[in-house]
């Protein structure tokens, strides 16, 4: 068994920042990640980092934009923390050598982005995430922080008290992809989940193949609730054939959207009369799909994004890699022709419920970055607000886990204080209820601590459970394979739980997920080798996809209103009297339980009164 003070799971922006922060505080910290750090999907982020760096800007304005963009479902203490900390964390990256784009006076460049009242998106060409990820990994190397790369974390070792709020996380169990070994990692102080996105729940996504929501699912099964899972951001400009993202920076610099008739539909059809193409992402995504649904799409599938009028010089200076992406993945040279674009799954606003220090309701368990929900983004994330979230909350979680004295969080986690429980309306059974005893890959239910008395015993117990699961999957030699199950779920989610959602479709998705769960009981791994077995790895990930797909759909069905990225056909209004609250889903040992807690709109100096979100 390996042992460290702090274990960070995942090595993208949030994980690296958390590890560096824990190291700064003198903790013995290690990262366990299924990918080598530089392979992380933070590297694909293009646009930039929102930070109020200039005299004419302020963190208060940034917070106002963020709260408005969230459609008043972000918690003000989290949003304000993001906006207050972002400037110094962004400059910290500059001090670490990050290659930001520069103005003529040598200062870092900033540009306009959707939903922002000031051009505060600090960028490095259209490859900000790549520069950020590599800069941070450099710091990791400098500090000699230990990385266990190509180790896939399969479950958390959490004690089994009845209430999740009473449980403690003692470590993790991980599978060494290279050798097939299953080992325990004891965390003396805490475990920080930084596993990123969950886009593989859908079949058209900007996310990497590795983004299967592992951290969210394993925390959920260990007792930490998932929050606001129904809020999925669909990015309005992805390439139709692959889902590769074309940055909002194209529109920030002046790119224009046209329908088949050559109309600038954002204005012509009144989707956003003031901001046009720079309206919030959900507004633009719905506008594009409406154009397609009403017969004004190109090939009934997409619209055009044109940036030719910006001129070659400006495009090469600020958006050069867009030329390569469009050529390599769509075969279109954007200097000569408009790029085809359509909405694709891009970002999960929801995730593991945390407070503004990254703590979950389970002692010693933290989450930061896309897998966490503090909540900064509420119903919709603004472009340029994901990267600052990684560095701000990654750092806070790292500091807190390392034992730094920090101000107590204002946000509460778990079932405390003012919460309400709710009935789940579902046409089928959910979670594990109704499934036989032969559930094979329960990757992270709270370990039955039995006679385990110490943290190490508990980790060891979890390791043994995992070894059994993996042996079973490898020994079983018939049944169904994960690719089939995964594909069914992805198709159903894209068809039924997409930009436009209606009751019948959501119920159909729940039925499809149920069927996939039953099939999963009979899953087997074709590759019997212990060496670099990606078949096994993907089979384990598929279990996570099932739990997450179910949570997204349940939340979408329960929330009968239209807020942020969540649109319901039957309910075309935001209903503040009923829905200024977060959706929470607890695993409850296999019988999912739905509950709500109120959103916090009271900030440090003001209350963010819900207004109509028009752009």
């Amino acid at each position, binding site marked *: 068994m390996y042992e460290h003070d702090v274990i960070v799971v995942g090595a993208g922006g949030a994980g690296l920042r958390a590890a560096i922060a824990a190291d700064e505080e003198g903790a013995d910290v290690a990262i366990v990640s299924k*990918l*080598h750090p*530089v*392979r992380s*999907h933070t*590297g*694909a982020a293009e646009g930039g980092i929102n930070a109020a*760096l200039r005299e004419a800007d302020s963190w208060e304005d940034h917070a106002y934009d963020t709260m408005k963009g969230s459609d008043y479902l972000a918690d003000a203490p989290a949003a304000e923390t993001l906006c207050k900390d972002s*400037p*110094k964390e962004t*400059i910290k990256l*500059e*001090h*670490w*050598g990050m*290659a930001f*784009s*520069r103005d*003529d006076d*040598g*200062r870092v460049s900033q540009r306009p982005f959707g939903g922002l009242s000031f051009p505060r998106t600090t960028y490095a*060409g259209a*490859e900000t995430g*790549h*520069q950020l990820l590599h*800069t941070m990994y*450099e*710091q990791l*190397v*400098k500090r000699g922080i230990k990385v266990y790369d190509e180790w896939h974390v399969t479950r958390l070792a959490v004690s089994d008290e009845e209430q999740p709020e009473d449980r403690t996380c003692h470590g993790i169990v991980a599978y060494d992809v*290279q050798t097939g070994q299953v080992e325990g990692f004891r965390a003396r102080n805490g475990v920080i989940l930084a596993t990123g996105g969950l886009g593989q729940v859908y079949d058209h996504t900007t996310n*990497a*193949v*590795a983004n299967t929501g592992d951290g969210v699912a394993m925390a959920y099964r260990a007792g930490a609730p998932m929050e606001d899972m129904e809020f999925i951001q669909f990015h309005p400009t992805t390439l139709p*054939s*692959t889902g*590769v993202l074309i940055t909002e920076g194209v529109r920030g610099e002046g790119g224009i959207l046209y329908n088949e008739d050559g109309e600038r539909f954002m204005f012509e059809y009144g989707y956003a009369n003031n901001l046009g193409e720079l309206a919030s992402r959900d507004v633009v995504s719905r506008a594009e799909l409406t154009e397609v649904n009403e017969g004004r799409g190109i090939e009934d599938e997409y619209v055009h994004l044109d940036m030719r009028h910006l001129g070659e010089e400006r495009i090469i200076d600020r958006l050069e890699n867009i030329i390569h992406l469009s050529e*390599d*993945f769509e075969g279109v040279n954007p200097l000569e022709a408009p790029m085809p674009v359509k909405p694709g799954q891009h970002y999960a606003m929801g995730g593991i419920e945390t407070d503004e220090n990254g703590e979950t309701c389970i002692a010693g368990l933290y989450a930061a970055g896309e897998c966490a929900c503090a909540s900064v983004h509420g119903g919709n994330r603004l472009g340029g607000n994901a990267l600052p979230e990684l560095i701000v909350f990654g750092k806070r979680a790292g500091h807190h886990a390392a034992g730094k004295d920090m101000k107590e969080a204002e946000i509460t986690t778990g079932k405390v204080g003012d919460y309400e429980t709710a009935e789940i309306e579902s046409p089928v059974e959910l979670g594990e209820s109704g499934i*036989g005893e*032969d559930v094979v890959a329960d990757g992270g239910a709270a370990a039955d601590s039995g006679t385990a008395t110490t943290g190490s015993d508990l980790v060891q117990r979890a390791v043994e459970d995992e070894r059994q699961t993996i042996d079973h999957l490898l020994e079983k030699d*018939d*049944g*169904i*394979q994960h*690719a*089939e199950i995964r594909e069914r779920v992805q198709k159903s989610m894209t068809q039924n739980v997409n930009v436009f959602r209606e009751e019948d479709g959501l119920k159909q998705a729940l039925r499809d997920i149920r069927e996939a769960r039953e*099939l999963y009981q*009979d899953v087997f*791994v*074709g*590759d*019997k*080798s*212990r*060496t*670099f*077995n*990606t*078949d096994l790895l993907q089979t384990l990930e598929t279990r996570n996809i099932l739990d997450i797909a179910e949570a997204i759909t349940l939340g979408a069905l329960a929330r009968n209103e239209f807020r942020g990225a969540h649109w319901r056909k039957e309910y075309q209004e935001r209903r503040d009297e009923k829905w200024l609250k977060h959706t929470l889903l607890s695993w409850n040992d296999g019988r999912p339980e739905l509950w709500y807690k109120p959103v916090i709109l009271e900030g440090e100096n003001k209350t963010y009164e819900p207004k109509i979100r028009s752009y």
Partner: protein
Amino acid sequence: MSTQVPEQVEDESASETVSTGKQKRDAKKRERAERVQEQREVEAAEKARTADDTYHLKVFRYDPEVPEKQEPRFDDFYVPYKQGMTILDALMWARDHYDSSLTFRHSCRQAICGSDALFVNGSQRLGCKTQLSDLSEPVRVEPLPHADVVKDLVVDMEHFYDQMEAVEPYFQTNSLPDGELEEQRQTRENREKVKMSTRCIWCSACMSSCNIAAGDNEYLGPAAINKAYRFAMDEREGEDMKQRRLEILEQEHGVWRCQTQFSCTEVCPKDIPLTEHIQELKREAIKNNLKFW
């Protein structure tokens, strides 16, 4: 079709009397799974056979643990072609429809994670940004040369990572601004100068293509030297640091080993002018030595 035709699933329980609910459920489940599996195989085979356009891939296979794969071999896969299909798409299709044990690294699918550098028809390329339509058939897909094969198309990257980390690959300066909100200034020209060098995605295609690296295990290699270039040329680090960096690069297994064959530059999927960067560092080193002479 594949050489890896999946075996038909035997239905062992068909003749037994099913009595309990659990057994019934299990039997039903198995039946459904079989149906799905059979249907899938038929569909896949049918698709491959009837498609106007299939691509023939010859893929390197090796697994030290599996007796029939201990001796390296090539498997044939016929993959139905779709407009825009890449090598990575074809490998994923073959894996998901023919042989789930076909192993390769991949993640982002958009040429930024650097996981899927492969040896395709005799040159180093990223699987995700290589269009099938640009290649002649049969398409030979092999792991990167000059690296140990772990399994199938996966190679051991440790040596590459070690070299990358041997050049102090992190920003160092003695003159940071005092204020935590105060940035260092950098001219647009200087940022432009280092821009290409910062695009490296650590795919190791360059290292694999380099004859010198193949013969000298200690040679830093093009990617690591480029990483050092990125810092040596960054005006924010200052002159002292530049001296230090040139010393590291001038070591026996540093820049002077490069024989300017340009193979690294040719294969770089991010178009980084690696050889030029190495040449420029050699010139800097000479200038530097003359200064102290």
